[in-house]
């Protein structure tokens, strides 16, 4: 779980992205929860970093949930044209944790081979 407590400048945000991906690979974490409740500004760069973290950790078999977005940030993101696709969001940490658990749980349930897998095997 990561909480971002200050407004990051670009270099710091890039470092955070790299650190998270490294940690996921090192620990084999299945879920990442990013708390941005203390972040007052999400511009296109920060939005892209959050999206990237989601996509990169998905490649490492981990799910990302972003929690605690301020309403003003949500309004601004949409008007900016950046709807943050590709990451799950939840209102707060508790709900985010529940969401993460349910995503990971359903993934475990659906690991039986489906038709596509058979085709590849043939």
């Amino acid at each position, binding site marked *: 779980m990561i909480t971002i407590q200050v407004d990051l*400048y670009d270099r710091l945000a890039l470092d955070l992205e790299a650190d998270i991906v490294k940690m996921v690979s090192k620990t084999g974490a299945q879920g990442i929860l990013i708390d941005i409740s203390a972040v007052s500004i999400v511009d*296109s760069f920060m939005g892209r970093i959050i999206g990237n973290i989601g996509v990169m950790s998905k490649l490492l078999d981990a799910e990302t949930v972003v929690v605690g977005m301020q309403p003003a940030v949500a309004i*601004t993101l949409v008007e*900016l*044209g*950046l709807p943050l696709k590709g990451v799950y969001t939840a209102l707060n940490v508790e709900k985010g944790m529940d969401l993460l658990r349910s995503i990971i749980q359903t993934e475990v349930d659906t690991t039986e081979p489906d038709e596509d897998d058979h085709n590849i095997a043939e």
Partner: protein
Amino acid sequence: MTIISLNKDNMPVVREQDVVPFRNRVKEYAVRIKMGLVNQTKLITAASELVRNMLRYGNGGEVLIEIVSRGRDNGIRLTFTDKGPGIADISLALKDGFSTGKSLGLGLPGTKRLVNEFDIKSELGKGTCITIIKWANG
């Protein structure tokens, strides 16, 4: 109606580390004219986009922060000036999804949507000057 400038402050932005203090200064000004939180966030996000462009493409520059008034309305005017390479095709740069860098191409068009007034002047080889205004209740 004419726009009167009430209070001004010049701030150089030449390094990435200048961005957060700059954003905080803009916020201070916005709070001073009692701008609502949503408009504050829009203004600061717009400022952040433009200042990043200035750093990335214009090698840094200066920002003039002003409290302006037009009739009963108060607002914040930000003027970003750089001496960078300039923008070859402004209408193209204002299109969603266009970028000469590696970004999403949302900076300029997105910024335009977030503020009330947006003006851009650019001359190749001389630099770029962008002015935005956000009214306190606009």
